[in-house]
């Protein structure tokens, strides 16, 4: 499966901004067999980056043990309307995707 859509929601809490991001990705472990008994090759997101107004605030490295169609929630310090949040990922096949949203 190729990279599908992403979705992100940012909401202002008290003293922080809640960020929730959904991404379409199979997160194949390389251990699973398909219906024909063939091993499905490893295919998973390895890096995740969160930027706030262009500056990296969170770098993550993840493994194939993160569930399919990953959902992550983060919290950013403070936050105000108009803040630009960008989340991007890179997988072990070199595919990548990104999404950005503005805090409303």
């Amino acid at each position, binding site marked *: 499966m190729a990279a599908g859509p*992403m979705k992100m929601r940012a909401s202002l809490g008290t003293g922080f901004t809640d960020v929730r991001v959904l991404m379409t990705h199979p997160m194949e472990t390389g251990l699973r067999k398909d219906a024909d008994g063939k091993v499905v090759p490893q295919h998973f997101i390895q*890096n995740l980056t969160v930027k706030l107004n262009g500056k990296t605030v969170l770098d993550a490295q993840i493994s194939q*043990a993160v569930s399919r169609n990953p959902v992550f929630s*983060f919290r950013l310090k403070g936050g105000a309307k108009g803040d630009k949040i960008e989340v991007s990922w890179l997988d072990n096949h070199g595919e990548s995707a990104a999404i950005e949203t503005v805090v409303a």
Partner: protein
Amino acid sequence: MNRIRRALLAALVFAIARPLAALAAWNKEAFSAKTPGEALKSLGIGDAAPAKDLHIEAPEIAENGAVVPIEISSAIPGTTALIVLLEKNPFPLTARFDFKEGALPFVKLNVKMAETADVRVLAEAGGKYYFAKQEIKITVGGCGG
């Protein structure tokens, strides 16, 4: 299907091969380690102290090992990283989050667990390491077949 996906990608996602390639550091050795001990060694982590201020919020029983929700947060001052290990998975190291100025040490994610096991979370703060653990039971659900 592909056409739709492409259309969606164009609408929602923009390609960013350039900046990501620069920071595509992924600790292959640590993620390939087969035991929690080896993984920690690869990450350069020696001793870790138990910490009450490191919180794991997870169900004690999960109906399905394919999706186990875990929320981790640290109230240890100066926390710069959170590390998640699933002790009985074939490759225990599951995630490492490095927080820079601007992010709070808080993450919620879903993980896969092969069997009932401890989740071990480590926090790095001021060059020291802390840990917390919780057991999560994995059950079989629903009808067979």
